[in-house]
């Protein structure tokens, strides 16, 4: 600002507005640039997060498709305890169905809902189950979450891996206390019972809906 001029009131208003406008343009530009520049990295890490979860329940070498983009929009499904729409991921190898990866909810945990992610292979075998969200008592029922399980070599929730309706009867697909074959740690029965029940229901649901789920939307 070199020569100090006297501005009239309207002139002053226009000048001020122009300066504000320029600042808005500059900082909006800065925001857009930052957004566009970081977008690929942010999307990549969101994908990475999702894949990390999927890897927990289904080994990556079992399928060769881009599973995160081979999806099926699932309507709210009471059999899975889901009251909202979710996404089912479909794993295929050479175009052949390998497994379904989907969410399920055990509604009857000791402290409310326990959210699970699990995979069921095309032959009905459970590929793996993981707890993604729960409010179970710390140090008591929270061992359903691998991170909190003291048995690091063989966490509780890995018992379900490899189980299928063909090999395990409904009677066995229960915690030991209820006459089944699922072990649990003494002191907390409600939590493992809820998870066990949810996995059985989910396995049944996957069995009944498998063909529909793999067929719809077309293979990629």
């Amino acid at each position, binding site marked *: 600002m070199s020569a100090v001029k006297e501005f009239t009131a309207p002139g002053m208003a226009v*000048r*001020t507005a122009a*300066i*504000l406008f320029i*600042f*808005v343009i500059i*900082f*909006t530009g*800065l*925001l857009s640039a*930052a*957004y566009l*520049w*970081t977008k690929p*990295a*942010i999307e990549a*890490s969101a994908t990475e997060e999702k894949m990390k979860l999927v890897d927990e329940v289904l080994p990556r070498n079992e399928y060769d498709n881009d599973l995160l983009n081979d999806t099926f929009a699932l309507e709210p499904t009471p059999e899975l305890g889901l009251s909202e729409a979710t996404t089912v991921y479909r794993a295929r190898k050479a175009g052949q169905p390998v497994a379904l990866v989907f969410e399920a909810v055990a509604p009857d945990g000791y402290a409310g809902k326990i959210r699970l992610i699990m995979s069921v292979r095309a032959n009905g075998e459970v590929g793996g189950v993981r707890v993604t969200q729960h409010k179970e008592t710390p140090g008591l029922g929270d061992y359903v979450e691998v*991170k909190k399980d003291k048995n690091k070599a063989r966490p509780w929730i890995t018992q379900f891996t490899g189980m299928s309706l063909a090999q395990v009867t409904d009677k066995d697909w229960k915690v030991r206390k209820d006459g089944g074959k699922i072990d649990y740690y003494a002191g907390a029965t409600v939590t493992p019972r809820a998870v066990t029940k949810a996995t059985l229901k989910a396995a049944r649901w996957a069995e009944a809906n498998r063909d529909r789920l793999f067929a719809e939307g077309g293979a990629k």
Partner: protein
Amino acid sequence: MITRDEFNTIAANGIWKQNTSIAQILGLCPLLATTTNAVNGIMLSLATIIVMAMSNFAVASLRNLIPHEIRIPVFILIVAALVTVVDLLFNANLHELYLVLGIFIPLIVTNCIVLARVEAFAAKNPPLQSTFDGVFMGVGMLWTLGLLGAMRELLGNGTVLGGIDMVFPSLQPIQLLPESYPGFLLALLPPGAFILLGCMIAWKNWMDAKAAERARLKPPAPVASAGCH
């Protein structure tokens, strides 16, 4: 450049004399929300340090271009843009850290300390001094919120370092008081934060009064609240 004296004054103001939480009484909204344990308070302060250093630097650099009449909207524009850019950059490049600090960054928007320092300091001082002011205001906030969080947590739950597993997954909170400690809910609720903050302000005033007496000076006049939440 910055002289040693200037630097010392800025540091002393930020950490003690004009401490945001116990002298200026600014930013009470995030203070109440996050200091239920020390870890949250410290994490919020770390995020605030980054944003304050950047916004103070930006405003100080542009201060001669901003007309006085529209300085507030321009400051808000700069602060909001910087908070969002920091949020995006963290998410993209430091994803692990973002998972820890990320939820605190949007909270800074509710924190008027940033705007207050921009208006009170950066608008009148060169960039380097302003950047240091931002950092030291944040450091002052860090120890205050850390201490307040630790006291609330200890009184409320009997633990220290609750929430540390969020930052370092291998660490666990330490139960300092016996397991049978019944807990003291008031300390964890916002009124408890106000009461403990009041005690800290009283402690600071007492320390200042003692120091002033020792220096045979009159106690400093109590600093009025800026009326910001």
